């Protein structure tokens, strides 16, 4: 037993030396690496005021689906806002072509991109506040910092990977429907969101349920993408439906990959792993001197 203790005493000296190296050098190296990655990620979001003066550049995305060409959309993204949108819809019945566009004076903020961007900048802020000159005293300090950074990164990622689940009336009531220049016909609902690295546009066509319909009326709950036949209560926004209940008759979903979102997601995943690895390194040492807050 005594020899064991002696061995561990010698071991301890080495370990403490290693731990000091970890705190003073390795941690900063990882933090630097993390900062670089996240700066790269935030560049993708074109943070306003972060060096790039003037309005953010506009990018056009042509949205389509591989199956049909009934809906085509050209969306223009300016930073985190949709500045222009052109939607062409071929009506399934009469092949009539409908065209809608955004009003010139309006922009539609994509909340998901804004939130993700803000979370990333918060993470960067957390990292920059402990620059090279800052000396970490304890491992717990590093763990706490990593936890805070990881929280922001996870939220940033989740914001992009989990679009809001909205009910049909919520979609109808959202400001997006009021953005279009020839106002949207009352039987159309439009929603735009980000899912992972894709910009998605969904168009729902509604028709009134026959009052004597045998179908059980059950209003659809919240969903990212509502399916055919989802029912909803009369929309207060569109009075012409009266008190008739509605049903989704057609669902069109078109999407387009935003390349820089893909990059950003990869950066998030990589930095999350880096954070976790650093945490693991710290906790290895915790085993050796559990008696003090490592």
């Amino acid at each position, binding site marked *: 037993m005594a020899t*064991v203790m002696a061995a561990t005493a010698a071991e301890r000296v080495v370990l403490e030396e290693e731990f000091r190296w970890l705190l003073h050098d390795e941690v900063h190296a990882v933090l630097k690496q993390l900062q670089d990655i996240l700066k790269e990620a935030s560049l993708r979001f074109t943070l*306003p*005021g*972060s060096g790039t003066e003037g309005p953010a550049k506009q990018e056009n995305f042509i949205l389509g689906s591989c199956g049909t060409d009934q809906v085509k959309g050209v969306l223009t993204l300016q930073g985190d806002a949709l500045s222009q949108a052109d939607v062409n819809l071929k009506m399934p019945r009469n092949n009539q072509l409908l065209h809608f566009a955004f009003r010139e004076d309006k922009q539609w*903020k994509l*909340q998901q991109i*804004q*939130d993700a961007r*803000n*979370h990333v*900048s918060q993470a960067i*802020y957390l990292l920059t*506040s402990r*620059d090279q*000159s*800052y000396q970490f*005293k*304890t491992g*717990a*300090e590093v*763990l*706490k910092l990593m936890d805070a950074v990881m*929280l922001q990164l*996870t*939220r940033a990622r*989740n914001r992009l*990977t*989990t679009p809001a689940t909205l009910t049909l009336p919520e979609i109808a009531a959202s400001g997006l429907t009021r953005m279009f220049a020839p106002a949207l016909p009352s039987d159309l609902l439009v929603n735009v969101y980000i899912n*992972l690295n894709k910009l998605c546009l969904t168009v729902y066509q509604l028709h009134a349920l026959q009052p004597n319909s045998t179908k059980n009326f059950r209003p659809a709950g919240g969903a990212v993408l509502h399916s055919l036949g989802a029912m909803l209560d009369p929309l207060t926004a569109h009075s012409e439906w009266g008190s008739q209940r509605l049903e989704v008759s057609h669902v069109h979903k078109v999407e387009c990959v935003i390349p820089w979102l893909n990059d950003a997601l990869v950066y998030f995943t990589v930095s*999350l*792993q880096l954070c*976790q690895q650093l945490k*693991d390194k710290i*906790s*290895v040492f*915790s*085993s050796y001197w*559990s*008696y003090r*807050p490592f």
Partner: protein
Amino acid sequence: MRTSLQAVALWGQKAPPHSITAIMITDDQRTIVTGSQEGQLCLWNLSRELKISAKELLFGHSASVTCLARARDFSKQPYIVSAAENGEMCVWNVTNGQCVEKATLPYRHTAICYYHCSFRMTGEGWLLCCGEYQDVLIIDAKTLAVVHSFRSSQFPDWINCMCIVHSMRIQEDSLLVVSVAGELKVWDLSSSINSIQEKQDVYEKESKFLESLNCQTIRFCTYTERLLLVVFSKCWKVYDYCDFSLLLTEVSRNGQFFAGGEVIAAHRILIWTEDGHSYIYQLLNRWAQMGAAYKTFSGLSKSIYPADGRVLKETIYPHLLCSTSVQENKSHPFVMGYMNERKEPFYKVLFSGEVSGRITLWHIPDVPVSKFDGSPRDIPVTATWTLQDNFDKHDTVSQSIIDYFSGLKDGAGTAVVTSSEYIPSLDKLICGCEDGTIIITQALNAAKARLLEGGSLVKDSPPHKVLKGHHQSVTSLLYPHGLSSKLDQSWMLSGDLESCVILWDIFTEEILHKFFLEAGPVTSLLMSPEKFKLRGEQIICCVCSDHSVALLHLEGKSCLLHARKHLFPVRMIKWHPVENFLIVGCADDSVYIWEIETGTLERHETGERARIILNCCDDSQLVKSVFPIASETLNHKGVEQRSSSPYQLGPLPCPGLQVESSCKVTDAKFCPRPFNVLPVKTKWSNVGFHILLFDLENLVELLLPTPLSDVDSSSSFYGGEVLRRAKSTVEKKTLTLRKSKTACGPLSAEALAKPVTESLAQGDNTIKFSEENDGIKRQKKMKVSKKLQPKPSRKVDASLTIDTAKLFLSCLLPWGVDKALDYLCIKHLNILKLQGPISLGLASNEDNFSLMLPGWDLCNTEMTKDYSGVNLFSRKVLDLSDKYTATLPNQVGIPRGLENNCDSLQESNTIVYLLSRLFLVNKLVNMPLELACRVGSSFRMECVHNKVRSAGNDILNMSSFYSCLRNGKNESQVPEADLSLLKLISCWRDQSVQVTEAIQAVLLAEIQQHMKSLGEIPVNSQPVSMAENGNCEMKQMLPKLEWTEELELQCIRNTLPLQTPVSLVKHDSNSNSANFQDVEDMPDRCVLEESESPGEPRHHSWIAKVCPCKVS
């Protein structure tokens, strides 16, 4: 029932970590409030001499606290609001530490401002919140419901900081905010109240881009009503409020980050940094110094309306007057604030909180001046304090529960407990220590040795075992039998830092097997649910800190599977019994599915798929989820012990189902215990402490029926029961659920299959009670009792119960107030004095409770010096006690069933009487609150209007309930005089007297009364030792037999007066609650009473079993 649960914290030598993330001083400058990363709030007492001392720790948030703010006009109601990282919001009463309101919203706030406009607003005002969402949210300060929001028409974005500007000049309140993108926005506040209340959108009045990022603070100078101070992380700027023109920019030097600032006087500002430094600047006017020609512009206050705002531009510059700093070696970030004096004795105080938990105060002089040579003066630190300082200062009361034993073991220092587990069925506390030993001790004895003074008999008696097998700190413990009765009662598992898991026999102290996992520290040990079996056995799941999961088979003494592929910490373990899958959910929201038989990784999913997999597991079978730091949740949900609460945290998909299922099981099978130990561990450290839980109601129940049990326990017990039912009809369902949950240990709470036999420990009455309360479960009852009978019951250790009662009384008694009284208590009640003031816990609702910290007694500023070191909860107690004594009729003393009985019988009688009294008080003080929060405000209004009537009802209930209690003591008549007492107590609750205060006051008064009557009797009996207790109790039962007839008669008499209050209250609650159908209960009870009648012989046999046990 939860309200009868009293908690006593046994702190260790180390203070729990408290990494301050938010700090504020209340408006009366008496209390500092801090919020921590661990999720607790701490109340610190600030004396008039600016001395700090920690008072209370408030538990309630399960995530890091993000901000604190005032929640009411502080002079009227001392309420503050706290918000956490996960969207939880709590409103706390700062004076008593109770949570007043709680809500969880899907918003993360980073700043909150309280706004109230008395002449335009009804209600308690608004909380204006900003955070990780667009624009400003308006939340009702009373209900915490979202009222509306202030919207921005231009560049909606997250808001970083805000301030409310009350301008006397224009008679309009405005809200100024700065967004993350650096956009300053202004909303009209007072003139838009109506629009907001009508849910109309209110857009900003003005906005301006400030061209800097990371805004930390925006402050309006109320002295000049002209300047606006905006602090960014890299610079601070002064703007002209009239046209938002920039007057001054000061960029940070040597890489400091600014964290905030305040205008402390006209043209004088205070700026602080993230590393704890602060600077006071005088804003000087260049022109004023240039000559008299510009005298007109010399002071901004004098020239409120200069012709041109630009005149001011470039004319002011800052001059550093003073600075404050902290010593080196400080952890940052600091959170700081500044508090100005409002009235005479108050100070200008700059305060800061650190991640390390340290609070520092600087007293800022009224007129800060620089040194004579013009260099900045350094303002010294006025006070600084940490939680640990409290613990060091009051070290007699801050020892951990087993310090005494570890002290015995080796004289050199005490061992740090790194993990502990309480086994309710054996009343054993297992503590794993940092040096690898495991100490098993009788929990009650350990608590007594720790809390009570002197009594060497206590210290000598507790037998404890020391298990030696680990070479490293023991990190986790598991008692499988507590989870599943099928497993051997002697087995206990422990895991250490070197990932060695040992299977012990706790009775023989043998090592049965050692598993070497080679996977880093064992973070938690779990058991598969009852449903899930492999080779006929439930298996143990062992989560290690290298994110691996090992499955151990105890019978086979083998390791079945070691899943090592996880990249992130394991958050959740689920079992798929049909397909033999182990589903592991990780912190990055990915899911790994392992096939247990073959040990292969079947699937790995991330994102949406992973979520679906975890969700669908939830409803398909019984699942168990785990967190490596489940302790964190224990912290918060601890006292209530919601059965699966340790496992629901944060982003868990849908714990609802899980809770339900386990609740049901526990409900049916668990009974409350009078005494319980709850080990608590905190996040990011191995510091732990224990909480003792006393269930007053259960204690009374256990003690009370004993003397009557052979007579007719059911009817008289029911008498009380009926009343209690009547009183609690409104809360009935929840009551049972919670009641049964309250007192089970963390282990047992999780146990889905605790044997019915175990619960017999409570005696039949308890089972009857809990079952009866819940009418639906009635049928099960018979089954339960059938199952009960064949098995030999674990004896109801009456001496254990009475010991618990004594310890409980010791904890509550205001020792040291009256030395003579202390002596009498020790002598006649045979209870021991406390070593020092105890740290009491107070639960304010399901999720929130507060714990006193060592040294809390010195915080009561109104307490005179004579009472320091005295276990007096507040000064008020003495007054209350006097009032109570005054109302106490002389003839009603402590009932003594027999005039010439032996002392110990009297002693136990007295204890029972005292406890029942306390229970009554507890009930009375608590009830209206519960009623109010359940039935809603309408009822409360009614209550207020018909105060007399409702109070009357309560009193009727109580008096007859009380008479029932009395019955047990052979006093049949309803004491009319007691009505006044009950009135008094119900008065207290209207005066918002705390439960603990009321309880202590009543206890003090009753004891004084009792001792007064005793004082006349010559004291000739020796103190009776604990061991004799049992004997005496048996004697106590014998004479009772003779009273049978008499008592029966009384019971009949009793039933008559009983009916009235019942119907009264029934009517009351029926009219108020739609949820609970009281009508159904009536037949239920009848049936029950019938079904209980065969219970009588059972009691006889039960006593026959108990009695020999006691004698032996």
